[in-house]
């Protein structure tokens, strides 16, 4: 009798949390909105203490370890030593995927049935996630943000990303990849104001096995919230114009 009561008590709770997800006309969870991370992954995706160039923070790598091949671990350490000039973000280069998700800047997702568009405040970066059943173009293409093809798996938007160049880092700490990088992102609305974001990383040239990052996206709820600009490569030239 008690078990049945508990079961009945759960049903409205489950129904309520399901009903709380905003959905589009075609029944999918609606990811549209302005989002931003609170994690310090942009500085270092692993647990790290405070540094002159980084706030302390817990990492986003599941299991904590990044499974580098031995040569690659040495390169990562070298990157770390040279990060003040070698981090591509010091030149305002596009951050690659998934780093573009966790820079300390907001981005706006605008979702349509066959295409999810993401507009980032960072250097007017744009990603179109084609969710129309189309395939990646033939390879290899050297893009900063890769080519993104998405599909809904239940209430999760799964995005397959390939066609990267080897110029981006995963963070300021020098974690890196080759042009064979393959990322699978998963966007899941855990409630109306939070997205659980996961990125599985695969790169047989650099790592011994796939590994995964996991973090939260928070919805901006300030009234009249909007993106502004972060045209960092223009900072040195602004003074000469108009």
């Amino acid at each position, binding site marked *: 009798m008690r078990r049945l009561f508990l079961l009945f008590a759960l049903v409205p709770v489950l129904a309520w949390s399901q009903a709380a997800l905003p959905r589009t006309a075609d029944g999918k969870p609606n990811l549209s909105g302005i989002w931003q991370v609170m994690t310090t992954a942009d500085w270092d995706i692993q647990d790290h203490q405070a540094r002159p160039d980084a706030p302390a923070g817990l990492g986003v790598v599941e299991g904590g370890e990044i499974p580098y091949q031995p040569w690659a671990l040495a390169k990562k350490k070298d990157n770390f030593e040279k990060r003040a000039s070698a981090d591509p973000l010091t030149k305002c280069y596009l951050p690659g995927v998934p780093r573009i998700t966790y820079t300390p800047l907001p981005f706006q997702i605008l979702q349509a049935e066959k295409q999810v568009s993401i507009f980032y405040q960072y250097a007017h970066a744009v990603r179109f996630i084609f969710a129309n059943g189309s395939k990646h*173009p*033939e390879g*290899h*293409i*050297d893009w900063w943000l890769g080519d993104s093809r998405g599909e809904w798996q239940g209430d999760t938007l799964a995005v397959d990303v390939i066609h990267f160049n080897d110029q981006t880092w995963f963070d300021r700490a020098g974690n890196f990849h080759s042009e064979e990088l393959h990322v699978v992102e998963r966007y899941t609305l855990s409630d109306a104001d939070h997205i659980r974001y996961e990125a599985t990383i695969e790169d047989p040239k650099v790592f011994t096995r796939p590994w995964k990052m996991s973090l939260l996206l928070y919805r901006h709820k300030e009234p009249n919230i909007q993106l502004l600009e972060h045209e960092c490569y223009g900072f040195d030239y602004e003074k000469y114009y108009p």
Partner: protein
Amino acid sequence: MTLLVAVIPLLAHHSFSAEYDIDKPVTITGTLTKLEWVNPHGWIYVDVKGADGKVVNWAVEFGGPNALLRRGVRKTDFPLGVELVVKGYRAKNGTPTVNGTSVKFPDGRNLYTGSSGPGAPED
């Protein structure tokens, strides 16, 4: 009444006369050493043997690669070491740099080039 449909080519980024010299057309033959398949302008590098026997590496600028990518052309279609005949205009700053208007391969293929100027298909 025919409805016009706009066909917009990749328009030039900058004033070419600032960097290249229309009075210095050049044709060079060399072997491909490197490809930079980047925006806004791609670059190919060719080793050219001069009359004095010395080898000089020339940089050849061509248009953004997206038009080529859309036609199915890939960086890997151009093996390093292949011999190329390049026509273009020489840079004003005296370096071995060319704004390429045509790049011919031994098999007769012509990689369209030209960030802007006559000859580029989009013109």
